[in-house]
């Protein structure tokens, strides 16, 4: 399955969007993935790349406020849209609660999946998800190799239920 006729490899396009609230204008190769533009061109390295297959969820970011997997998007598809990464959620109160709950519950070990999980949970919350089971159902699309998930569940239950201590 080799091909020798590569179409113009320098096919590029302007990308105009907002990232974490700031306007961005870049000229990007059309085949470049959104995950790579965010991480390598814009230095937003909180999102991580675990598979480039759309399965692990470590690259989850918000596109127009909704969770998407950046490795399943060409960067040029973000043209005209609004992208928010974990870095842009520093002042978000719910995101801060999630971070605190995760640490208190020891819901992370190596941390590689954590950005994707926090972003997924935030998107869930913003979309009006109102039960821990619904949030956990959504989160079951994010892979973790280290924690065995029990503490992650505990953190999420604490976040979605009044008065439950994440510890």
């Amino acid at each position, binding site marked *: 399955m080799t091909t020798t006729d*590569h179409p113009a490899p320098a096919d590029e396009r302007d990308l105009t969007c907002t990232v974490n609230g700031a306007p961005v204008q870049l000229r990007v190769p059309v085949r470049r993935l959104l995950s790579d533009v965010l991480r390598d061109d814009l230095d937003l390295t909180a999102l991580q790349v675990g598979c480039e*297959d759309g399965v692990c969820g470590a690259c989850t970011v918000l596109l127009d406020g909704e969770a998407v997997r950046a490795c399943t998007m060409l960067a040029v598809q973000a043209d005209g849209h609004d992208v928010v990464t974990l870095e842009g959620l520093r002042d978000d109160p719910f995101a801060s609660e999630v*971070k605190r709950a995760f640490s208190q519950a020891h819901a992370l*070990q190596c941390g590689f999946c954590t950005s994707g999980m926090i972003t997924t949970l935030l998107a869930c919350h913003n979309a009006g998800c109102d039960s821990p089971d619904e949030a*956990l159902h959504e989160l079951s699309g994010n892979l973790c190799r*280290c924690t065995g998930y029990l*503490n992650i569940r505990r953190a999420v239950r604490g976040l979605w239920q009044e008065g439950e201590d994440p510890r």
Partner: protein
Amino acid sequence: MSLLDSTHTEQTSARVPGGIGEPVARREDLRLVEGQSAYLGDLRFPGLAEAVFVRSPHAHARITAISADRARALPGVLAVVTGAELAEWVSPWRIAPDIAGLHPMSAPPLATGTVRFHGDPVAIVVARDRYLAEDAAELVEVTYEPLPAALDLSESLAGTAPLVDETLPSNVLCDQSHVNGNPAEVLATAAHVLRISFSQQRQAHAPLEPRGCVAVWDRAGRRLTVHTGTQVPAPYRTAIAGRLGVPEHQVRVVCPDVGGSFGQKLVAYREDAAVAALARRLGHPVRWREDRRENLVSALHAREDEVDLEVAFTAEGVVRAVRARLRSDFGAYAYFPGNYMLQVIGMMIPGPYRFQDFEYDLKVLLSNKCPAGPYRAPMAMCTWVTEGMMDAVARAVGKDPVEVRRLNLLEESELPYQSAAGQVYTDITPTRTFERGIEAFGYERERAEQARERAEGRLVGIGVASVIEPTTYGSAFYKLAGIPGSGHEAALVRIAPTGVVSVSTGLMGTGQGYETMLAQVVADGLGVPPETVDVLLGDTDVPPYGMGSRGSRGATAGGGVALLAARDLRDKILRIAAHRLDTEPAELSVADGRIVRAGEPAGLTVRDIAAIAYLDPVSLPPGVEPGLEVLRAFDPPPMTFSNSVHLCRAEVLPDTGTVRISRYVVAEDAGQLINPMLAEGQLHGALALGIAGTLQEHVVYSPAGLNLTDSFRDYPFLALDEMVERLELVHCGTPNQRIPGGMKGMSEGGVMGGIAALTLAVQDALGVPVDRLPLTGERICLLLDRTNNPDR
């Protein structure tokens, strides 16, 4: 060296706040939850180029031609180097220990004449970015002459498989045996003998962050810095320096944050050396960041092991003798001594049981598959084997499996006890922990409930697994076992003139929370608040040289030596303080960073002592050197152990073979826990790996030897909704007398117990022996078919 600490001044005190035993939140989290961590892919280097490897599409083939001309011509490509060219700059990997029964093996830095597994690297491409490098890799023209592949263990044993390594007489890399007592005679004359088989499937470590490295040379091309996630920075440095022919002290290894490893980031890889060589040739930094497909196909695999047992037992159910035949598929190259993983399985088959007549023979086979390496609890199947044996004996004599275990389990009064494999068990609680677990599970009640459910036609089973987890692996272990290696660890603890503390050891964390753990240990040993303790890991320019993290030794070897060093430093502080206060050191202690006498602050702080030590050394007591720095090394006992029991209740849904775990209880004795929250997290993670390894993870090769499970779609690790609903955990810790601080190590036992307890629960549910993993829905349905239609 006395580990009973008689050389240390007694520290009379209550628990140190935030010290050993406290479930404090991790300091690592502060940067990890904010996305401010720095994994390899997050680092920035001016002029960085990206490397990609051209890899064999065949399991076994001769390379008849290789041309990089078209690849080199692609704009943006900086270099393309083949195996033959690279061999001029990088020496081969060679594992040639002088050990009977173990053949030497070499591996070229990149494959040259032949490729030996699907994914074997044959050339390295370096380009401006990864996209271009992948384009160029496709333009490297390699002509292969496919050869028949060695893929079947029994064919390699029979000598009918193609040779993987032409320098060896067969595919048997290692052939060793062990005997204790007279098992042959006991087996020959026993009235009751069983034969049972256990076969485990090939799996992959698959850390969420794949492998990679960045190699940076100084302008003169003399000093190399390798940025890479590795569990063992110092040994890695020695190895990579050796491969490149660079003096060891001119190589620095710096570890960024690491996204998991589980044993896969333990060695300096052929790819790493190729990257380093290219970086030197090109004069600017080169990065290789493996992708997921490469990782699943060509990193390291594990667990493709088989054990066949012959067991002699009495009519009452007492096991008298065991003969084990162990076989393992090691893959195409040796990154580790051939006997390394399989031997620990053999060593642990006796488990926590009394029988003494025991022999095993082990054979490690090469194959045209990805090389094997230790994967968290490489010995894991031993528990399934041992506990499966107990269940089989129970079935044969018509007794309850727990009752049979009680007949055979070692009691604490029998310790220290030398097992049938020559391991000296001390500081374990096999019976005590077992009974605590049985009680917490409510075993009698669960069996009664099971009987009721089975009467309703439901396939419900209970599995019980006692785990003895070997941990720490001191140097003497390697010597005794005939495995090349050493197991010491070292710590440097320093107090700066302003009184702040730092500790470094040879450990490197890949998620375990070592920064937090070591701060707690040092805070405890010194008597200072943990917030004042800085932890430096993973930079080989910072002493000491330690053997690193592996085999559940972080807390025992690393924590243990850090505690020794901290206590040494505390003693020096007290000597200085005593001299200053005109009293004896025995009258003083350190608490919360202050010198304390008779329970009251004595008016001096650690900071004051540091100021004296560095800035006013003339005031020091005679014979005390300036400064407050201690370097301590520690070679732990050959082996330490923790123990636990796992109890699992599971139901099989016969329509699809789906397994539902309805209850999971663990009673564990892991000694003194430095941080109970972290220890529990290790158990959870290990258990998840055990469950996934039992039910669903399987590296599958096609009949032609091509890896079919090269993505997370086809290699599924446990998802959040597949983990047990609840883990009931009973702590039964008793201190380890042989490790400073009393730790035992415990991060692998969860895999061992998980595989065993779940497999035996499913076996109990099905009512037929399970001799092969994974227990996919398909395999379970086939087992049920066979039970229901024995003639088919």
